[in-house]
């Protein structure tokens, strides 16, 4: 008759056999509780983020840029923070923009984010951005490759037939919008800022060569895009939550602005921030919490390895 009692596990085996659900419970607690506290994490913005901020701040007030947006709610944690930072800067500098998307869900997500940033502005007695007059939605384009080629070579053909709806009016041709006043080619835009969570980053840099490119990408895309930044294919890069937090700090302190919290850069002169404005956002809210999650990951890796080491030692002892 087989022995029904199970042999007692050693400490090493126990450490390696922690129930999966217990890790999930601890993870949920660690990613929830810190959100209720206003924590601050010291931060040094990376050069790519500083260049992003410097370049977008160098766009003359009242001019226009092109915005590509290819994120949806699946990457809201990173991409929405990036979009809000970009919108806040553009609106404060009164820079007009036209946005296009290569994902069917993206145009609505952008409109919702613009509405949120406009609500912030109204609450602070600032002028909200009006559709058609201050920004234009060019909508969804199903073929990224063809559209990027067309934008680079013949912008008027690329956006021909597209309509957007002004306030209190029916749809109008986008070329009637003040955003497109005098526009004949993509060179009439100061730069292209792309917020993406997909491969449209490469599609864009392979095909749009006539204006500088700024990328805002998700964390998983940072290593790839770092190459494009290092080889000057893009002039600025905001990557993941770190990029959002960097930009929020840069909006608060500027670059080389004398003071106790100066963010230094040897590349840039003094670039002002927006002291006193609403600069904190999703980066400030999520970045401290991320550190708690990373702490759990490190503890879990250490626990598993210590467990494996002890179990191996035990097995060697048993064999001897």
């Amino acid at each position, binding site marked *: 008759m087989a022995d029904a009692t199970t042999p007692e596990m050693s400490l090493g085996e126990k450490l390696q056999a922690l129930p999966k659900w217990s890790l999930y419970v601890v*993870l949920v607690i660690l*990613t929830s509780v810190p*959100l209720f506290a206003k924590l601050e994490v010291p931060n040094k913005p990376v050069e790519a983020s500083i260049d992003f901020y410097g370049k977008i701040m160098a766009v003359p007030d009242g001019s226009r840029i092109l915005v590509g947006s290819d994120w949806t709610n699946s990457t809201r944690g990173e991409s929405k923070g990036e979009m809000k930072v970009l919108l806040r800067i553009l609106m404060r500098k009164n820079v007009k923009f036209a946005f296009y998307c290569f994902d069917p869900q993206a145009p609505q997500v952008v409109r919702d984010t613009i509405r949120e940033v406009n609500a912030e502005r109204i609450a602070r007695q600032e002028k909200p951005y009006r559709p058609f007059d201050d920004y234009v939605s060019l909508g969804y384009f199903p073929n990224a490759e*063809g559209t990027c080629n067309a934008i680079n070579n013949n912008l008027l053909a690329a956006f021909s037939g597209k309509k957007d709806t002004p306030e209190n009016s029916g749809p109008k041709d986008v070329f009637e919008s003040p955003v497109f006043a005098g526009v004949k080619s993509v060179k009439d835009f100061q730069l292209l800022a792309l917020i993406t969570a997909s491969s449209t980053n*490469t599609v864009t840099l392979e*095909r749009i060569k006539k204006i500088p490119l700024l990328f805002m990408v998700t*964390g998983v895309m940072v290593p790839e895009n770092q190459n494009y930044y290092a*080889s000057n*294919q893009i002039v600025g890069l905001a990557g993941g939550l770190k990029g959002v937090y960097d930009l929020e700090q840069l909006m608060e302190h500027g670059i080389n602005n004398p003071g106790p919290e100066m963010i230094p850069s040897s590349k840039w002169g003094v670039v002002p921030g927006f002291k006193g404005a609403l600069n904190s956002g999703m980066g400030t809210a999520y970045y401290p919490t991320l550190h708690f999650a990373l702490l759990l990951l490190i503890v879990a890796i250490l626990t598993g390895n210590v467990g494996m080491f002890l179990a191996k030692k035990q097995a060697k002892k048993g064999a001897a």
Partner: protein
Amino acid sequence: MDYTFIKMTLGVLATVGLYSVLYRENKFYRFWEHVFLGLASGWALVILWTETLKSTWWDKMLGATNNSGQASVMGYWAYAALLPIGMMGYFVFSKKHNWISRIPIGIILGMYSGQQIQVWWNRFGPQIDNSIKPILPTSTASFFKPGTSGLAPDAVAKINSTVYPSQAITNIIFVVTLLSVMSYFLFSFDIKSKMLKNTTTLGRWLLMIGFGAIFGSTVMMRFTLLIDRMYFIWIEWFKMLVLRQPG
């Protein structure tokens, strides 16, 4: 109960439902998964028509008339030829006529292939160019590259064209990494040279370090997405909507 509350509560239920698969496969998860798939497919179809086909194909094909019924914009009827070409793609489902589907696929492939040489160079050319770096310093006046802010353009150009020792060291690390990693992919002959063997081993180690850094970025992103969902549930829904407190 207002619309926002219903909408957000459904969002919370969907979030919890989709995460419930971590415990085990269950019907609650399946339900929300199918809701998501249905919504995404339906939304994509509508957007394809309202934001793309109608404005860039249908309206242009039909043209427009003014209030008196006369043509104000002439219709571009050649666009009608695009419909049968597109519809040919659906013959992929026919066993007898599926060769027809290869015509539009061939057109797309041809257009795509034609772009590839230029596209490849646009993507990798600047990176290859940027890989050729000086590894010897041209000035030892300063170990680090001096700051350029506030300097005259001539002075900035002079600093930028000088290789300082710290830059030379960085460039050496880059060049060694590049060459050793490339040597790891020399599969077409048997590597007998001890030096080359050591170089490929170094390349493999550096690749592993690179993959570790990439994996770290990936993990951070996944955590951020989880934190965002927790923020949605606890702050946006529970604190701001249920308890009516400021975020």
